[in-house]
């Protein structure tokens, strides 16, 4: 039954959708911001045996004992399973241990290539973004990675200005030809819906739309003619239990407020 507390923000819906991409027992390389909450939510709901790896050199299999804003907050170090070097946890990524990773982006294209470095106009830098951080590594080396970002026409573009984090390049066979050992994006969770990738063409495919969003709105806000899956689904709304947990994790709504 719907109650007042049952209303949710778009960010909460996105975090819940991200959390549901994690299967129990998976080794997860946890990114910044919404993915951080998505991992914690998954741990506290359907994936209690998931293990979190953080690029700072942190491994933990329990949520931090207190709400955290970022992975370097001291509660996230408290009773960790392992505190180590960045090259150690990057080694786990490179040697194929990581099942899934999450990254955010400023610009993504139809093959899931992600740009968090440079927005260009006629060969000139118009916006300098923060850069890769670990994102390029997560996209290159995890068995699969999930992209979480806002759905706007200038963000979902036919071709990114700069590939910070490789997706499927220009299509089938590109990752193998480039020398990447495995992986590729498995889903893109935006503020409007969820896209997956055609297994043959490696092109983005709309598979689910969020409640209250129309296909037309999505197509108008995507920079190329987005393909749509025949059996289009509706993204399930967060459950009351998921929202309750999420609000304990982000009590001030810093990341998931309206």
């Amino acid at each position: 039954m719907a109650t007042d507390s049952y209303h949710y923000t778009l960010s909460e819906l996105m975090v819940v959708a991200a959390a549901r991409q994690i299967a129990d027992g998976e080794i997860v390389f946890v990114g910044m911001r919404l993915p951080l909450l998505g991992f914690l939510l998954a741990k506290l709901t359907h994936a209690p045996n998931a293990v979190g790896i953080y690029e700072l050199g942190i491994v933990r299999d329990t949520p931090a004992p207190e709400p955290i804003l970022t992975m370097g907050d001291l509660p996230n170090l408290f009773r960790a399973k392992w505190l180590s070097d960045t090259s150690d946890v990057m080694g786990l990524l490179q040697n194929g241990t990581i099942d899934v990773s999450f990254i955010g982006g400023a610009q993504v294209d139809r093959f899931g290539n992600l740009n968090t470095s440079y927005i260009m106009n006629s060969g000139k830098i118009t916006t300098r973004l923060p850069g890769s951080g670990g994102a390029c590594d997560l996209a290159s080396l995890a068995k699969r990675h999930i992209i979480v970002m806002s759905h706007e026409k200038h963000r979902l573009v036919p071709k990114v200005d700069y590939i910070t984090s490789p997706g499927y390049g220009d299509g089938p066979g590109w990752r193998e030809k480039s020398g990447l050992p495995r992986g590729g994006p498995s889903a893109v969770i935006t503020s409007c819906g969820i896209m997956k990738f055609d297994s043959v063409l490696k092109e983005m495919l709309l598979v689910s739309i969020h409640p209250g969003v129309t296909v037309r709105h999505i197509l108008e806000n995507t920079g190329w003619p987005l393909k749509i899956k025949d059996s289009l689904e509706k993204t399930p709304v967060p459950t009351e239990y998921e929202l309750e947990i999420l609000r304990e994790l982000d009590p001030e709504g810093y990341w998931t407020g309206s």
Partner: protein
Amino acid sequence: MAPASKLMSLFEAIKLYVPDGSEVVMGTSLETLIPFAAGHEIIRQKKHDLTLIGTISDILFDQLVGAGCVGKIRAAWVGNVITGSSYNFRRSVEGGDLKMEDHSNLTLAMALKAGAMGVPFMPALTGLGSDLFKTNTSLKKITCPFTGKTLTAVSAINPDVAIIHAQRSDEYGNAHLWGNLGVTSDACLASRYIIITAEEIVSPDVIESDPNRVITPGFRVSAVVHAPWGAHPSPVPGYYNRDHNAFIEYRSNSKTPQKFEKWMRDWIDDIKTSDDYIRLLGKERVVNLKLINHLLSEPADYGY
């Protein structure tokens, strides 16, 4: 003969070991233990043409860029971790005033690993197909001599100086660090000089009771500085929590060059000592950031 003490003031350490044009690695534990006090002293001494090296930099690099100290950055990420982009960095790159070598966390870690190991490069599997190769001449594609597969070769980085904030150090540069350590160990081994800034200066007995916790052998360290609260607003495991508000306030205080000038006047120009800085922070802020839940590790027996 007892070794000579390396204890000196922050002013002396930066004056001696960070000449103009130096390649400086700092912020090596990523979000924790960022040597802000040392960075601010670099700004006060108006160093210029520095090359900054780091994985992610949580606003310290932005401050040094805004102060005009930096000619080039070799890093994976420059911004404000909980708010996003950082403005001085953006202005400088977009205005063409700052050279950027784009790394990922893994390539930067491997560059320092190669530097630490004394080899010209380290192989990696990351970034293949990405455009990092276009904006980073330290990355090249090579063919593995054993498997014939394509690899990323990451050229070694050997910084002139590593600036490391530690929880505690003896006066000879043997320092204990704990928590997540990022690329700190390799950054120390790869660098020509090492400056340790520490929350506490302790006797060698304390350090030698737990040699596994020593970040790098003291004989390679050039300077040791007592710098309590020297990593604020980043967190120091065992000492103080992250001051989120400082990062949020910095976002608006760096939005325009004028605002940033004022921020520098308020937080950097008149600070001479750690005591000045702690006074500026104020009692309430200091108390609020201190640890509430302590967790002491069990002692390990190193006896024979």
